[in-house]
């Protein structure tokens, strides 16, 4: 347990929809998970089971009904469930990377700016940030003529690769991947598998969702079936 980076204990998530007759929708309950540095845990379960909901809880995007999500740092530990917004911001800036299923585009911002942004926020100088962004975009086969354009008009696969580049550029110690290979061709899937292996080698603790069995087999150290925790 000494190298555990991320420990989820007895997590419960319910939704209450006040505007729809206060419908109560329990998602999961009693879910626990531990991920070590350099390890990739993969969540299993059919669509609608709450896999993405779980990742969103880890990212502080969804509120946690009960339970804890603890991150272990050299200086001590932090529970995401009780973290203030300023701390969630700090964690997102420095610690937790998240590749969502869909790119939420900020209009009028160029693809390369979006990819360099996580490094710039960390205070890395412009030249280094843009150089790394360019390297990553090239590796993910985004044609150079698109770099200066806003991804609003990009194809689904291109948008997904911009998201992937944003998630992998900053060497986050914790990485959340929500079906990063869903709309990619074989060539780009292979790049993503490479990126995951590199992140693991650097010690990242990864939690991912992969519907593609082939990718899952290549990256997973631990496979967790969410079905048993569904309420």
């Amino acid at each position, binding site marked *: 347990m000494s190298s555990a980076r991320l420990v989820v204990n007895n997590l419960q998530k319910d939704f209450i929809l006040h505007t729809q007759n206060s419908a109560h929708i329990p998602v999961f309950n009693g879910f626990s998970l531990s991920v070590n540095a350099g390890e990739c845990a993969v969540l299993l379960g059919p669509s609608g089971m709450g896999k993405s909901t779980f990742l969103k809880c880890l990212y502080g995007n969804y509120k946690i009904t009960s339970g804890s999500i603890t991150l272990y*740092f050299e200086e001590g530990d932090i529970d995401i469930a009780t973290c203030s917004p300023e*701390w969630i911001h700090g964690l997102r800036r420095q610690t937790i990377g998240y590749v969502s299923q869909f790119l939420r585009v900020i209009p009028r911002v160029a693809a390369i700016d979006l990819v360099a942004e996580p490094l710039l926020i960390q205070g890395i100088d412009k030249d280094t940030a843009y150089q790394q962004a360019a390297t990553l975009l090239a590796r993910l086969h985004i044609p150079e003529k698109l770099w200066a354009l806003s991804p609003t008009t990009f194809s689904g696969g291109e948008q997904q690769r911009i998201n992937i580049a944003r998630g992998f550029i900053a060497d986050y110690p*914790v990485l959340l991947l929500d079906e990063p290979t869903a709309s990619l061709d074989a060539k780009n899937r292979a790049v993503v598998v490479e990126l995951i292996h590199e992140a693991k080698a650097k010690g990242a603790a990864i939690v991912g969702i992969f519907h593609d069995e082939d990718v899952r087999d290549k990256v997973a150290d631990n496979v967790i079936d969410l079905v048993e925790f569904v309420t």
Partner: protein
Amino acid sequence: MKMPVVETQPLLTVNNVQKLYAINRGCQDVNFSLYPGEVLGIVGESGSGKSTLLNCLSGQAAPNSGDIIYHTRAGEDLNIYDINEAKRRLLMRSEFGIVKQHPRDGLRMRVSAGANIGERLMAVGDRHYGHIRDVASNWLEQVEIDAERVDHLPSEFSGGMQQRLQIARVLATHPRLVLMDEPTGGLDVSVQAKILDLIRTLVADLNLSVIMVTHDLAVARLLCHRLIVMQKSRVVESGLTDQILDDPQHAYTQLLVSSVLTP
């Protein structure tokens, strides 16, 4: 892994602020802290107390009770209504900036664009005409207004240009805290996008802290790190912008979020 470094000295601390005009009209029980570089959005329906709160924060309306504590450039913590009028005005001029919803309320319409910016600079002690004019031209370019129009009157500008001029006027004196009341209200969407983009860039480049009243949740998502949701004079929910919008907890916030039309 190393713990992130998080700012622990708030720029502004609001404790139990209350300003009521009638029962549940105005704002009450408002508590929050704003950190340097943070953009805080205040959302809620008309009449929920958003603008009342903003007026309290901007030194324009003393609350009935509660404290508003500002951490100055010099490192002093000032309760903005405990200091005398002259000192408060100086603080507002030198460290605060206020962007009004209607540019004509924030601009002087009978003097030139350059003079609108220059006036603010002179208010904080700049006296060199040539320098003031250079700074004014420079700011016009930053907000994408042709510097050749420095001598034109704001009334000769379009609504979107007037709003950008107002932003230039406010930012020219390098405020640390900018308060905005519906900065893109009443503008058409393409102009709105340009202003949002401008605000986003300037906030990041100048490390500004911003408190913004808006009822446009799309604007809030784009610009604000954190949100406060108000209903009937009270804060019903607050937190990270994406958490509030994607997983709202309070019935009123859920109603607000579910009522948004997406094109």
